[in-house]
């Protein structure tokens, strides 16, 4: 068993930035990507990747057959590979030592629905066989593997809104077992009519079109889209190839509320256990945590549940731990949220300050939130991801600045 798994680079595309630099700059400036969403309709509000064009990263070859999820993921993978110098050489065979683990919630729902719609309206003999491959949920990960010649471990993980963190944990276990030496892991989610309508009808979307995580008059979440990946390697592999280890994956915890498919346990027992498991796996106590990247998305009940759970874990010390709720900036990105949160945690550990919560003005939660970056007191960050379907996951990461 290999003990240490490290992060050596990342890639991201979201509403408030394409590429790590732009994303980080806007995240720390408190800019939000929530706004008009031409993709979802004239008056729609979402954290859309506006004017998304994958061509600068992916070129034109083979792009036409990729759906939006596959394009977003392939772009994030391109950035991650180039940031770490692991991109395939021109004309190279697929690399059996490089893989991809992708979290997603709805996968290629829009492609599936469109494919079925054409069969339903034009007749089954008129469905486009070229679009059939996009109807499998693992299609984005498969397409990105073809595009970037990734021949190693390839997996798609779905645990609803917490899929992204599960993917990071899954990749870490594969590296520990020696089944891989370098894996990209994270998540992808596209905005599409189907998931947009689905969420809108459940009443969890902010009517004001403004998510205010932990805010006293918050009225719901806003959906977003994007993809975020980490390059994860065994510490030995990173060292052997001279790559700088930026972060270490220390502990993961996951639970299911086993309560109701559309609801969580409001006192946060499952979320509490997930955080405690993550701390235990990392071999540290709550006092060692320097900041929390919260799951909060502006949901009335969801944010309250997280406050309960945080209080269960941190007790009276909670008010002294800087907290950031980055979904105020990039929205609820479903299967990619955990990965985006993990990237935000990595940025906080590297800079020594955690990002502001975009648009923050007040909270009655007792949490240490701010519209300004806050200083980090330790080298450990806790990333939370809790789903409205009862899935809970938490990750502890350590900054390796020395």
């Amino acid at each position, binding site marked *: *068993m290999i003990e240490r798994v490290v992060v050596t680079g990342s890639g991201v595309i979201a509403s408030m930035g394409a590429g790590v630099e732009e994303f980080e700059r806007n995240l720390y400036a408190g800019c939000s990507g929530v706004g008009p969403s031409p993709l979802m309709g004239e008056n729609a509000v979402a954290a859309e990747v506006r004017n998304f064009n994958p061509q600068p990263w992916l070129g034109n070859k083979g792009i036409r057959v990729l759906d939006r999820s596959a394009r977003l993921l392939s772009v994030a993978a391109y950035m991650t590979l180039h940031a770490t110098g692991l991109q395939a050489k021109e004309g190279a065979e*697929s690399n*059996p030592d490089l893989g991809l683990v992708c979290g997603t*919630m*709805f*996968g290629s*729902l829009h492609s*599936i629905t469109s*494919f*079925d719609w054409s*069969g*339903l*309206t034009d*007749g*089954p*003999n008129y*469905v486009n*066989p070229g679009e*059939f491959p996009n*109807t*499998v*949920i*693992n*299609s984005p*990960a*498969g*397409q990105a*593997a*073809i595009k970037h010649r*990734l*021949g*190693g*471990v*390839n*997996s*798609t993980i*779905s*645990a*609803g809104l917490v*899929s992204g963190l*599960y993917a990071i944990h899954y990749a870490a*276990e594969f590296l520990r*077992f020696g089944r891989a030496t370098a894996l990209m892991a994270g998540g992808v989610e596209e905005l599409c009519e*189907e998931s947009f*309508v*689905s969420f809108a*009808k*459940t009443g969890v979307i902010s009517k004001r079109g403004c998510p205010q995580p932990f805010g006293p008059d918050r009225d719901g979440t806003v959906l977003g889209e994007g993809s975020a990946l980490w390059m994860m390697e065994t510490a030995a592999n990173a060292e052997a190839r001279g790559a700088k280890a930026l972060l270490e994956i220390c502990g993961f915890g*996951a*639970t*299911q*509320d*086993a*309560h109701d498919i559309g609801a969580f346990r409001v006192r946060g027992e*499952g979320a509490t*256990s997930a955080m405690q*498991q993550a701390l235990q796996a990392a071999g540290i106590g709550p006092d060692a945590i320097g900041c929390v990247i919260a799951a909060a998305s502006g949901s009335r009940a969801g944010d309250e549940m997280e406050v309960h759970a945080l209080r269960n874990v941190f007790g009276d010390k909670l008010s002294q731990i800087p907290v950031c709720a980055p979904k105020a900036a990039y929205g609820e990105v479903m299967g990619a949220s955990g990965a985006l949160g993990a990237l935000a945690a990595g940025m906080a550990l590297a800079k020594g300050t955690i990002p502001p919560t975009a648009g923050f003005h007040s909270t009655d939660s007792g949490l240490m939130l701010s519209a300004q970056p806050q200083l980090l007191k330790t080298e450990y960050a806790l990333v939370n991801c809790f789903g409205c*379907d*009862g*899935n809970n996951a938490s990750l502890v990461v350590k900054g390796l600045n020395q």
Partner: protein
Amino acid sequence: MRRVVITGVGLVTPIGTGRELFWDKLTSGTSGIGPVQSFDTTGYAAHLGAEVKNFDPSGYVRSRHPDSMGRASQLAIAAARMAIEDSKVDLTDRDRLRIGVSMGTTSGEPGMVERYNDARKIGGVESVPADILPKYPCNVIPSNLAIEFNLRGPCLMIPTACAAGNYAIGYGFDMIRLGRTDLMLAGGADSFSRITYSGFARLGAIAPERCQPFDKHRKGMVPGEGAAVLVLEPLEDALARGATIYAEVLGYGVSCDSHHMTAAHPQGDGAIRAMTMALKDSRKTTADVDYISAHGTGTPTNDRVENIAVRTLFGERAPKVPMSSIKSMIGHTMGAASAIEAVACSLAIHTGVIPPTMNFTEPDDGSDLDYVPNQARKTDPEIILNNAYAFGGNNASLCLARVQ
């Protein structure tokens, strides 16, 4: 690290529900393939399917009304309930945070997309009931298992298409091996869907009369549905409670062709990498393998590539290792397939009998591999490789063994 064993199996398949009936039908070569009944195939280029007929979820789904979930979840709950009963494990006083669920699927709950589109066709998007798409995301399947049996540990879906069952069992194995959980329900589920069916029909991949894996005259696969769930637990726990142990999970491997979304790599590179990783993970070599449970869909391309992969990896020994495909009887149950096949492998180890490849008449291109044609065989296999390949180029091989 802890050793992990299979102590309970439950399944719903086109040839029968439950361990005993399934195994009787499988070893006697019974086919579950017939004309599609769940929708009208007029206008489709194919008509054969492998459906689970007369399935009544009400006896299995007890925590809520079965209509509150899709068919794949119902099939999965039925399989899981049978698996738990089969294992005779008493969950009453167990720490629920230490019991998890990992499932595989190709399409999740595609019936919800069909209902969405049906409603949309009649009354537009605005008329679609609000409760349909929340039941769609594929992780509702393991979540429904968690709710049904009050399991609060890790709960995830690995939707790696037709290799998903092996992925899910592998993950469950890892969780127990590492001591993160003490019991896992792992398997796969897929429901019959016009979406999948129309895709395969349009590709011309569906067999017109029967499914004939590895046969010279094979004409295609047959889409199917089903679910299988395995109870995984640490060896020491199984021994302590005197459980029946069907098989031990030794290891697994996964890879990606990174070649084409639907066509396998022509030299079987990815398949070879997955088998190699599985054997290495299990600390075994090809010389140890007594039986291969093939992916064997019955399409010309898949079976040809699978032959090449096994030939390349096993070399001279390839003809001496029996390799069969039960898809000749149960069709291709998609994300459930490799989970159902893992159950078949467990029962092969437990009973000493390996299931046949049915409808076999003559080998392709003079192949001398042993496909266990048309008749089950008593070979007392000790170590088995279960292979699964999928759209997206995903490959997964699982290594099971008689517990020593």
